[in-house]
């Protein structure tokens, strides 16, 4: 048995080790070659695997690397699993990943920690590939936590800035909360089925005798994990802060790949969710609410990356809507298109930031279209794609989501559709607002920044172009149909089929409406936007403050935790209760000792009295019993 799958995983690991241990000594050229070459190689191997898969007629390929632990009857193997779903994910990860690696050559070339950067990036790929290739939830969890680690390291890449280090920590902790749910889910499923292999779990749930465990409880526990990784309410708060990392990282980890891990997990365990309508409903509800919620925040953000971050959360919400209504293939389809256009957007934003020497505030941009045309063009294409302008990639995937949200027999409803459509409208609006403020209008840059503006090098623009092209045409590859054999699309009630065409039209209209609204509000150098702001000051403040969720968490969770730990546990518990008891006993002993010393006062009379009393007591004891 060949170990191609293991090879895919090991290649980036080798990159990590090489760059991490020897990178600093061997120079940037070496680092770039290894750092980019190995992911590309991995991509190539993945393609080979895909070809094999097709040749084998779609039969999944399973590779067992080694036994991690065998305890009694329990077997924990490190095994890889490759089917169509894996193939899509692996190709996205390695493909987009490779592109971003290449992009980073230019973006990071001035950084002193170049080798460290590539080491981390390769490490991330390693774990991400473990995540998608793992057959067992255990392996998936290894990857799951591992990408969290890589994300933590990369967010805090510039660790001298305490804020950035803190953002990394926040991401890790928030993910950990989700992971706790994931762990519990994993335990539950293991308890019920005695296996963590996901193909077996699906098979068990799809089988004739369903296992004696609540699929919904399991589904919800796992979804808690997924919501951590994929930034859904209530665990989304880390993602906007994660923008502290280098922009290519945001593109790779916090847009294209890692954050879709949760989506992948749910899709991978579709067998469970198909039998968990309650859990699915929760997912759909959380998804759509997150989508709307994040979109509203995005409208008021001024940091170019923050806008994109909230947009990512919002798009992830869309994906969960699809998952919630049983359209797993569609969700993956959106993962796929989203990877392209969001990566393109982030990288474009990176190019802008690069051009402006680090400026991220869109209020200080404007009129860049002519100065950096390639960036502008690609950014515009990607914006159109995310907004759902046909025939770009985003249109296809989003349209399908909206359709199933409306029509799926697995939880679709008009309400769901309505909210989703509103969100789509908002998406188009805030994305075009971003485009407008950044590239059009008159320049609001400071003169020295303006002076430095330059187009990015070829390694960056080339990648942008590739991604823009993919964003444009990616939608024509119908992933849902490709995945349909294993992730069948939900049934649609017959009477609803009439609505299909009108809804397509409607989604197009929504996209253009958003575009138009943005053009209207921001087209006149911001005067109308200013008017709106003055009209609804409260709303504006709430949106700018991101609904003050961070503050609420701080006040409701973090502070009480510290307070209890410090005041109750440490001061009352440890110091007063436990140590206090000890010290009290010690003092008692000392005092008794002092008392005994005083009794021994040197007087022979007293000693003799002791003797007499002792005799009396002894005699009396005997007498009492005698």
């Amino acid at each position, binding site marked *: 048995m060949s170990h191609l799958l293991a090879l895919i995983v090991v290649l980036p690991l080798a990159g990590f080790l090489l760059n991490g241990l020897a990178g600093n000594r061997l120079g940037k050229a070496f680092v770039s070659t290894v750092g980019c070459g190995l992911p590309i190689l991995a991509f190539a191997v993945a393609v080979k695997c895909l070809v094999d898969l097709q040749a084998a007629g779609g039969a999944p390929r399973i590779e067992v690397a080694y036994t991690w632990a065998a305890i009694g009857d329990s077997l924990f193997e490190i095994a890889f699993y490759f089917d169509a779903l894996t193939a899509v994910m692996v190709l996205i990860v390695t493909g987009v990943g490779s592109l971003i690696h290449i992009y980073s050559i230019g973006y990071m070339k001035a950084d002193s920690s170049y080798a460290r950067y590539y080491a981390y990036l390769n490490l991330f790929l390693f774990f991400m590939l473990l995540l998608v290739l793992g057959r067992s939830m255990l392996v998936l969890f290894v990857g799951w936590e591992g990408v969290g680690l890589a994300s933590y390291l990369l967010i805090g890449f510039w660790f001298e800035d305490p804020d950035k280090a803190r953002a990394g920590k926040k991401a890790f902790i928030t993910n950990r909360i989700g992971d706790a749910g994931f762990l519990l889910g994993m335990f539950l499923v293991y308890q019920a089925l005695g296996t963590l292999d996901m193909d077996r779990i699906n098979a068990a749930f799809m089988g004739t005798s369903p296992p004696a465990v609540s699929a919904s409880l399991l589904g919800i526990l796992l979804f808690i994990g997924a919501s951590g990784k994929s930034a859904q309410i209530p665990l989304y708060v880390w993602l906007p802060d994660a923008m502290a990392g280098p922009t290519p990282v945001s593109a790779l980890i916090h847009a294209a790949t890692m954050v879709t891990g949760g989506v992948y997990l749910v899709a991978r365990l579709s067998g469970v969710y198909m039998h968990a309508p309650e859990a699915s409903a929760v997912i759909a509800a959380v998804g759509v609410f997150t989508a709307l919620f994040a979109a509203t925040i995005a409208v008021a953000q001024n940091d170019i990356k923050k806008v994109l971050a909230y947009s990512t959360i919002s798009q992830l919400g869309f994906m969960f809507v699809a998952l919630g209504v049983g359209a797993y293939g569609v969700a993956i389809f959106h993962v796929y298109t989203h990877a392209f256009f969001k990566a393109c957007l982030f990288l474009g934003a990176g190019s802008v930031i690069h051009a402006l020497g680090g400026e991220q505030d869109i209020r200080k941009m404007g009129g860049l279209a002519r100065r950096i045309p390639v960036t502008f063009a690609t950014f515009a294409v990607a914006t159109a794609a995310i907004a759902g302008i046909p025939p770009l990639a985003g249109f296809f995937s989003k349209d399908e989501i909206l359709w199933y949200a409306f029509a799926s027999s697995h939880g679709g409803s008009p309400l769901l559709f309505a909210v989703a459509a509103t969100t789509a409208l908002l998406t188009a609006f805030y994305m075009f607002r971003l485009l407008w403020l950044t590239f059009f209008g008159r320049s609001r840059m400071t003169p020295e920044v303006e002076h430095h503006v330059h187009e990015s090098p070829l390694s960056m623009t080339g990648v942008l172009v590739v991604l823009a092209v993919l964003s444009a045409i990616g939608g024509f590859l119908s992933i849902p149909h490709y995945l349909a054999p294993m992730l069948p699309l939900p049934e649609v009630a017959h009477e609803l089929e009439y609505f299909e065409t009108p809804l397509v039209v409607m989604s197009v209209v929504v996209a253009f409406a958003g575009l138009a609204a943005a053009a209207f509000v921001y087209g006149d150098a911001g005067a109308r936007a200013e008017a709106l702001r003055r009209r609804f000051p409260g709303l504006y403040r709430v949106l700018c403050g991101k609904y003050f969720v961070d503050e609420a968490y701080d006040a409701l969770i973090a502070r009480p935790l510290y307070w209890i730990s410090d005041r109750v546990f440490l001061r009352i518990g440890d110091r007063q209760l436990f140590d206090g008891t000890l010290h009290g006993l010690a003092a008692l002993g000392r005092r008794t000792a002092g008392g005994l010393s005083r009794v*021994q*006062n*040197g007087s*022979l*009379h007293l000693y*003799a009295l002791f003797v*007499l009393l002792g005799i009396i007591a002894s005699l009396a004891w005997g007498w009492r019993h005698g």
Partner: protein
Amino acid sequence: MLIATSIALFALGLLGVIVRRNVLVMLMCMELMLNGVNLSLVTFAQQQATAAGAVLVLLVFVVAAAEIAIAIPIVLLLVRRKDGLDLDAYAELKG
């Protein structure tokens, strides 16, 4: 009856050790204790009609003499230092 006397003598002797401050009186009270014991020993010897008790009394005489022989020089030492027979003055070792 004699046994009760003997116990009373013993108790009075011990009481003397407890209450009398004069060291010499204290030593005499110790002798009183031994005398109390002797009385009971003799009484029992007489009751049992065996010689052992009487022999023991004889031994007690000797031991009492020996004790006094050692005690008096010690008291002399003490008195020489403190020039007093008050036992309460001799309470330096304590704690």
